[in-house]
């Protein structure tokens, strides 16, 4: 009788141990995932108070707060796009290294193409003149 209850207790402890270690592993995995996501996002964010550094590279007060803010937003279920757009709303398009196409950045995106077309037209005209 005593042996049976001892075995039962051992099994119970084993189950609890497996349950706890599984949960700890899940928490650690989730934390690593959010940390990796935070790094990916902060690599595309400009540190607005530093010189030529991304938020990821900088250890400034502002950058450290931003890293914590982004990790918190990810843990709250926000997507990368939602985080980028909310930061652009707060700090302006300048905060992102890779600005998306919007009314404000349309010229920025279209200018290389425009210059290419104008240059091509000028060269084409000259070639045609020579012929």
């Amino acid at each position, binding site marked *: 009788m005593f042996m049976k209850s001892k075995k039962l207790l051992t099994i119970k402890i084993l189950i609890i141990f497996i349950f706890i270690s599984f949960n700890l592993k899940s928490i650690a995995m989730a934390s690593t995932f959010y940390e990796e996501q935070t790094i990916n996002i902060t690599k595309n964010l400009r540190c607005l108070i530093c010189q030529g550094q991304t938020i990821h590279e900088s250890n400034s007060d502002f950058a450290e*707060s931003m890293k914590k803010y982004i990790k918190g937003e990810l843990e709250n279920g926000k997507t990368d796009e939602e985080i980028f757009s909310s930061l652009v709303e707060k700090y302006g398009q300048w905060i992102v290294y890779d600005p998306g196409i919007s009314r404000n950045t349309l010229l920025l995106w279209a200018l290389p193409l425009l210059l290419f077309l104008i240059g091509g037209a000028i060269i084409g005209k000259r070639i045609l003149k020579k012929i």
Partner: protein
Amino acid sequence: MSENQIFTDFKVVELIEEKQINFNKVLFGKKIYLINIWSSWCEPCKDESDKLLELKNDTSIMMIGINYKDKKKNALNFLKLYGDPFDQIFIDKQGTISINFGAYGVPETFLVNEDNKVLKKYIGPLNDEDVYEIKKITNN
């Protein structure tokens, strides 16, 4: 936040009672809200303390302080020493609340209207001209 933008809601914790509250609920009942981000370790914050105390006299403004990356004891000592211009004070231990405001550091001040729209943003300590401008806005 840049001017003309509207605050989205987020949670804040009071400095004294340490109660959590939605920030939108704080912005209620006044025409103008002045949100000042400050800290006891911030030297320019000492310089602007008399300007904030002057603005406290304007009853149309609710003065809200955001205590940035500070220790409660030091924050309370600062208020004792330089005066407390705030109607409500919230803590920002990690600097993430200030990111919600679109702030860069301390001190920074936002003037917000009853529709939660940012009317003005002042980076750095407030000066006499800023106080004059704020008073002009509240008198309109």
